[in-house]
């Protein structure tokens, strides 16, 4: 028996299987999902604002390396904020990939590493481009997979995310957003480094993955 005969037998065995759900029911459910995701979009934006303000946390400046001068003494060059290889990317035995951020990342290198690991998508730093007008509230829920943006969350201290290629449909991809939290007002050198968080959001179409993202609120304006 040829391979095609075996596959043909499988096909024929399912010939009596039909989906009975009426089109009208499917469309009605789809419409309901659209309305729900529109509502979710608003609530996610509000939740993001609340989360970012929790515990008097504020975003640190991420865009440019800071240079401080002590005034009377010699100039002191602060550690640059952007360091290459500030992340680890591990391919797990089950095919998943774990991305851990230790600092804000070199997004080009991190994206290349992500893609090399078989994951379509992009790594960006939250607030990495001050001129960026895209915020999480601007992301169209119908572009994401599933179609609601409440599937992602930033949690302080959760600097790792594990995902796999089956987390997005064919043609889609993942957006990995690295975010840095720092306690407001703490700028002395003995203060521990700021904690990191990694957010992951899947998109139906890789072409719709944002190239940059800014927070919905101005740094330091949380409650």
């Amino acid at each position, binding site marked *: 028996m040829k*391979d095609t005969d075996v596959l043909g037998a499988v096909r024929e065995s*399912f010939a009596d299987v039909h*989906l009975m759900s009426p*089109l009208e029911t499917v469309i009605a459910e*789809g419409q309901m999902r659209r309305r729900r995701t529109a509502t979710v979009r608003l609530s996610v934006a509000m939740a993001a604002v609340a989360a970012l303000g929790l515990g008097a946390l504020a975003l640190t400046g991420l865009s440019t390396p800071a240079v401080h001068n002590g005034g009377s003494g010699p100039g002191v060059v602060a550690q640059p904020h952007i360091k290459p290889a500030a992340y680890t990317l591990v391919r797990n035995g089950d095919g998943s990939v774990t991305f851990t951020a230790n600092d804000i990342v070199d997004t080009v290198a991190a994206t290349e590493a992500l893609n090399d690991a078989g994951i379509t998508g992009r790594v960006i730093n939250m607030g990495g481009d001050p001129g960026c007008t895209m915020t999480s509230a601007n992301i169209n829920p*119908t572009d994401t997979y599933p179609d609601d943006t409440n599937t992602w969350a930033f949690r302080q201290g959760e600097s790792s995310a594990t995902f796999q290629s089956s987390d997005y*449909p*064919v043609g889609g991809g993942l957006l990995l957003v690295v975010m840095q939290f720092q306690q407001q007002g703490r700028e002395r050198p003995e203060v521990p480094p700021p904690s990191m968080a990694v957010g992951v959001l899947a998109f139906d179409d890789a072409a719709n993955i944002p190239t940059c993202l800014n927070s919905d609120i101005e740094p330091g304006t949380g409650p």
Partner: protein
Amino acid sequence: MGALARIQVVAQDQGRFARFYEAHRDACLRAVLAVVGDRHAAEELVAEAFAKAWAAWRTVQRHPAPAAWVVRTALNTRVSWWRRRRREVALADHDIAAPAIGGTGVDAALMAALRRLPARQREVIALRVFLDLDTETTARVLGIASGTVTAHLARAVATLRGQLVPTPHQEAR
């Protein structure tokens, strides 16, 4: 865009979606059923996936393989159910109970043979047989290499041939 023009666009979209649904509903159900082995669950998953497809029709209709999108979405939804269930219910020996084989509308022996295949082999069979996807597209849908698809298919076919159809060697005994 004016209200009338917007209504016309929605009507056109709905017409395209209706044709897509009619053309692929059965194939998608068969593909998902072949993987999950549970008729009731498969119908719910596929109907939900089609609803998601309509909710995101602007994106899905541009997809190179929209039916594969539906199947992948249905199977991913199943993974979500499974993860949710795993969090809610602590099972001693198995993460999830094996689905009932009876009542699928498919020959029980064939369904049992499919259930014995590894999950990835079932997915390859489902996409190749019921959606008529070529090796490259199947590989993209599953996020694996084309050679891996070919290998999975060959192993699956060999297993099914051995289990379901008496081979000449067996007949000679």
